[in-house]
């Protein structure tokens, strides 16, 4: 312990701890690719990864991945197939955990990755759903990772690309016909926001080392609820850091560029 680490490395370590042994994980892009590799190398040796490009694998890729479709992710795969086959498993409720990136998230875990401002004349056009909406609706539980800024953690998103708990009323997902359970955590650069069992509004569960509850609340765009006993997020262990650096040797994903 004690080795210095970047905020992204901490986020990867925290995300990896969301993966349970034996989970089928819809992996997504960027930091979750590393989180999957870390989990497989520590507490979840029986997890499997499913990639929407059309891949299933057990062991993480041995080479660096800029995208999930890179050749090292195909070498040693358990299944190379079409996307609709990967989606078929998720539509059947077979995906235990999904990861989704987001530009904006709100207190009820709804994600916006489509439009800032009026969709017909947006201030910012974001890239879109990708598989995000599908994961949010169909996976059994999901987690999102985000830089903690007031403009990103907003009271209500103006456009729901990937639904969390909608308007936050009890039973919203079931009433709306959504199959999966919804978001369980928002992992940010400052802390971990958790959702209560059964869904609803996010609350602050842990604060990353070097940050305070006040700072997190200040950087959040709504009056953030705080757990009765907020603890400090456990720093990445030496083993977690070693695994992260093995899979991202040049810090492509985990070192903030100036």
């Amino acid at each position, binding site marked *: 312990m004690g080795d210095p680490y970047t905020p992204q490395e901490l986020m990867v370590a925290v995300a990896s701890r969301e993966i349970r042994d034996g989970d089928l994980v819809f992996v997504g892009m960027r930091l979750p690719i590393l989180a999957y590799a870390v989990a497989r190398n520590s507490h979840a040796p029986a997890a499997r990864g499913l990639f929407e*490009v*059309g891949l299933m694998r057990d062991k993480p890729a041995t080479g660096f991945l800029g995208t999930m479709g*890179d050749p090292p992710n195909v070498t040693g795969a358990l299944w190379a197939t079409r*996307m609709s086959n990967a989606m078929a498993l998720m*539509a059947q409720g077979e995906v235990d955990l999904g990861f989704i990136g987001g530009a904006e998230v709100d207190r009820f875990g709804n994600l916006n990755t489509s439009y800032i401002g009026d*969709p017909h004349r947006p201030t910012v056009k974001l*890239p879109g759903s990708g*598989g*995000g909406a599908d994961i949010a609706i169909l996976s059994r539980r999901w987690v999102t990772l985000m830089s903690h800024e007031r403009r990103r953690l907003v009271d209500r998103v103006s456009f729901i690309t990937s639904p969390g708990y909608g308007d936050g009323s009890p039973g919203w997902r079931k009433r709306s016909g*959504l199959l999966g359970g919804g978001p369980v955590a928002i992992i940010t650069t400052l802390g971990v926001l958790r959702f209560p069992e059964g869904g609803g509004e996010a609350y602050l569960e842990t604060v990353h080392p070097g940050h305070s509850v006040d700072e997190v609340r200040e950087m959040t765009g709504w009056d953030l609820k705080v757990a009765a006993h907020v603890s400090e997020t456990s720093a990445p262990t030496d083993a977690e850091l070693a695994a992260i650096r093995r899979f991202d040797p040049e810090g492509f994903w985990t070192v903030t560029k100036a």
Partner: protein
Amino acid sequence: MAQAIERFVPDGATVALGTALEPLIPFAAGHEIIRQSRRDLELVGPISDALFDQLIGAGCVRRVTAAWVGNVSEGLGHCYRRATEQGVPRAIEVHDHSNFSISLALWAAAWNSPYIPTRTLLGSDILTTNPNLTIDGDLVRVHAIRPDVAIVHVQRCDAEGHAHAWGPMGITEEAGLAAARVIITCEELVDASSLLKHPNRILFPETKVAAVVHEPGGAHPSPVQGFFQRDHGFFRDYASASRTREGFEAWLKRWVLDIPDRSTYLSRIDIEALRIRDG
């Protein structure tokens, strides 16, 4: 290549491209479309790693029907942003999808079905911005998308269009079956006998394939399983160049407009550094 694009990708066509997601993106074909100044295209794809952004920036596009448009390792698509936010170089229409729903829309067309009902997209505002997604009771109807042409890069093909592709295939099969016709671009043009030894692996019926173009390196900078790694640096350089309109125009001139064909393009990069040697 020039002939294939000239004959089968007219102005106003609906074109499916980049159907294997990050790998096998037919950049050479896309660049030829730009050189021939095609206009008013509708682009159809799942996620697009930079190629849609380039076609939009070059003014070829009237509508994008896709789940995601940007630069996968770098983030936002700057030309896509300029077109949707400021109408530069022209305004474009966006029909948002998710990855699952764009696949279903193409399967619907492949099966000549007006739509496929699904549970995905329930609760998403994507349903409010795309007229081809409608709600029917507690299901979403994903209406069929029938491309005029799908352009697909593969590892091996013969002159009749019997193609073998490997690695993850994304939405390639449904895009090809849904399209009126398919253009194949390939790393290796081979004899039919080696391909037809494994007929289960043939990607499309030969009746769908209108043109086969032997275009080694035609997917650069995207990866080709067994042939080339992804050129991450090239994607990074494109992202930083395209940040401004002027930067994009200079990039386009250097890498597309001033280049007559793919072999000239390949002579300006270190393609050998990306080659996969162990299969």
